């Protein structure tokens, strides 16, 4: 253990004294400073905060990723190229201990840098609004919509498969399939029918009511607000593109069962533009003690159109579930997890490749991982033609990559969404416990059996 730490400490000294890390640190400090002034977003205080956090964290993450790749590859390849490894490995240190020492060194360095830069970004984000001239209204908005960590709950999807099946059979019997869906496969027809049915469940005909029920709503503080975020769509455009609606929010079971009102129920009559996001602020005390809340919408007859709430983002309730600080810490943690993965990747590639080649391999993996969602989608799209070949060759390989874009921490902070511990744990499990561990294991295997002094030309 002592010798592992010795190698780790030496690795950190190397990164700092050989100026590899120093260059990145200076660059990052300068850029973050400049960003503090230049990131204005849409000009509002909220936009300012959002764009700084977004750019600052993304930039830090990006540069630290590159730094990790460079340091982890450099530390091993330079030892081999300059042959210091001869004097190290002839000492009573096993090869896996040496490699673990290198890994530990890079990870400890990363931890230090993530803490440093997170602290810098956090401080600037917290302090910046104080020096910015903004109205009280704007400040309240920043408090409610930026300096918070809101959990979002969307209505659970309704199971419509039986209805879809029935309707398909009905159409088939009636011989209408050919007429309605010309030249489509069964699969495609089913998909269409499914979407129709699902939209039906999310639309309120004229004069009708829609109701959603949510459970497990746990606002951090009952004195705070919760927000209903919605967007109307319509079958026929109403005059002035305006929809009149009544919203009733609270423990609606009290009305249904007539148990008497214990928690308050709030009612809002509103007039809103279609296809635009709105948020209704509701006091959080409307949530029942057991975490239940019901939301009902009444489509006033005067609208004279069916009101539809789009499937993916038509309706959502948001509530403050945690503080901005904790959310920020978790975001930094996700950045750190990326770095741990990259350190393992760097050491693996350096265990058998020379410096430039190893760097290239790592960069390719890094960028592919950054767009892994896109890569997977495009391969899935292609796969309809070459499914057999693809699903057994490329897909498992691409699945091996971490999904940096899926766990993009800055998007959570910008929209003030809760980055839950569960999600962080998931990222840790996938990126570190499975993938990074696998890479480390491979690196150990290769490194343990290679001839250290072998000269390859």
């Amino acid at each position, binding site marked *: 253990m002592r010798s592992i730490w*010795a190698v780790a400490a030496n690795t950190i000294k190397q990164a700092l004294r050989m100026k590899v890390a120093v260059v990145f640190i200076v660059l990052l400090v300068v850029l973050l400073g400049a960003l503090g002034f230049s990131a204005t977003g849409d000009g509002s205080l909220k936009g300012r905060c959002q764009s700084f956090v977004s750019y600052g964290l993304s930039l830090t993450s990006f540069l630290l990723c590159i730094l990790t790749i460079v340091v982890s590859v450099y530390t091993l390849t330079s030892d081999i190229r300059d042959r210091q490894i*001869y*004097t190290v*490995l*002839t000492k009573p240190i096993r090869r896996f201990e040496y490699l673990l020492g290198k890994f530990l060194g890079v990870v400890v360095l990363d931890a230090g840098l993530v803490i440093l830069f997170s602290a810098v970004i956090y401080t600037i984000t917290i302090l910046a609004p104080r020096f910015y001239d903004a109205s009280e209204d704007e400040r309240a908005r920043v408090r409610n919509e930026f300096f918070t960590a809101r959990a979002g709950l969307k209505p659970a999807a309704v199971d419509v498969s039986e209805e879809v099946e029935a309707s398909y059979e009905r159409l088939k019997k009636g011989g209408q399939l050919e007429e309605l869906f010309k030249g489509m496969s069964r699969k495609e027809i089913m998909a269409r029918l499914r979407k129709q049915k699902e939209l039906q469940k999310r639309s309120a005909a004229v004069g009708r009511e829609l109701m959603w029920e949510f459970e497990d709503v746990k606002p951090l503080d009952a004195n705070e607000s919760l927000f209903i975020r919605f967007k109307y769509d319509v079958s026929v455009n109403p005059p002035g593109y305006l929809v009149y609606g009544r919203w009733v929010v609270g423990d609606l079971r009290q009305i249904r069962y007539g148990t008497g009102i214990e928690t308050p129920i709030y009612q809002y009559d509103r007039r809103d533009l279609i296809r635009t996001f709105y948020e209704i602020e509701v006091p959080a005390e409307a949530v029942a003690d057991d975490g239940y809340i019901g939301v009902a919408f009444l489509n006033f007859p005067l609208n004279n159109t069916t009101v539809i709430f789009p499937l993916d983002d038509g309706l959502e309730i948001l509530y403050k579930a945690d503080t901005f600080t904790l959310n920020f810490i978790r975001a930094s943690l996700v950045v750190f997890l990326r770095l741990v993965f990259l350190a393992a990747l760097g050491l693996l590639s350096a265990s058998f490749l020379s410096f430039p080649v190893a760097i290239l391999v790592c960069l390719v993996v890094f960028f592919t991982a950054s767009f892994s969602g896109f890569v997977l989608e495009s391969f899935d799209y292609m796969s309809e033609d070459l499914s057999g070949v693809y699903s057994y060759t490329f897909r498992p390989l691409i699945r091996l990559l971490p999904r940096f874009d899926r766990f993009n921490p800055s998007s959570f902070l910008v929209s003030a969404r809760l980055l839950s511990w569960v999600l962080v744990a998931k990222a840790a499990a996938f990126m570190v416990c499975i993938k990074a561990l696998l890479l480390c294991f491979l690196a150990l295997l290769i490194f343990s059996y290679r001839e250290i002094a072998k000269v390859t030309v």
Partner: protein
Amino acid sequence: MEYAVETFSLTKIFSDWWGRAKVRAVEDLNLQVRHNEVFGLLGPNGSGKTTTLKMLLGLLYPTKGKVVVLGGESTESRISSRIGFLPEESYLYRYLTARETLDFYGRLFGLKRRVRKMRIEALLDMVGLKAVANRAVGTFSKGMARRIGLAQALINDPDLLILDEPTTGLDPVGTRQIKDLVLELARRGKTILLCSHLLADVEDICDRIAILYGGRIQSEGEVKELLLQTGKRQITTGNISDAAVEKIRQVVASEESEIEVSSPMEKLETFFMKTVAAAERQSQSTSGALVSGQISGFLRPDVSVDSVLDKLVSADVSGSEVWGSAETEAVDGDKAGSGVAEADEQLLERLTKRSEPSEPKAVVSEEGSETKPVEQMGAEDEQSSEDILDELTGDSKEREADKHQEGGGERGGDA
């Protein structure tokens, strides 16, 4: 475990990427290095010396054959903790200082902090780099890097010392010091395997040698036996008269042999050492007269090394074998063939005498550099005159502990 190092038909073939054999670097090598001997592996460039050493150390894997080092494989921790290795060039971390370098390697051996600290100071002193101990190794000259490389090979007090071209890049003084050190270590029971193509160095210090060419042993044996010209005899005399020479010539002629008469030449190395020692002595007396402790940065390391070597030499009062020490020389002075050339003994004597005035100076100048072990050593120096190698060697661990207590008590008394 008869041999410290033994190889069994060791073969190394370097092949290209496609697996085609390209170079037969070592072929069917059977090497035996006995315990407690200085073994030299000689050969021209590319004869497979370094490849052999790398296979001994597990840095290369043999294509065929087997290596046994100290009764096991050198990659095992229990074996590698008893080996010291100095590679052909000192491959060091350029950004570490000399002291940090030694500390790093000490940690790899899992040495305790106290032991590490003590050994580091002792080794720095021995290789003469104390004055530059806090300078990055990257700024060192080749010779200085070599010295620190040697120090790292000794930090674990190895039983087997493997030296690859130990004297390359060193000036004659440094070369001489390394050779003396090797002899001294051998006297203390260490086994030393060195490879070199500097024949003069090998001749001076090796008990046995093997000459490699093309990856095979061409010749092997004891240096004395190999070099002894059995058909000839040499007579060395004092400055006798021409008449006496003529008489001898007649005697030789009656044996039906020929005689060649000339004045013996001094070895260039010996001459060089004498000259440097004389120059040093002079500069010291002048600086001593002016100010105290103002020794030039360039000469300083050598000064302290000499003092250490003196300590090495004078400490072993009980030592039965006599080797260049000033007081024992008087006893053995008339024995002409006592192992070391007479000139060398003179030189050592000179170094010993010269370093006496220099000693307190070194201590004075080092008192400023706050490290405790230095003070401690300075104090011991006068009292018990323990030497640094003793501190390093495992068998004197008790003494080490005693010394530590002693030093502690002393300091306590002072306070």
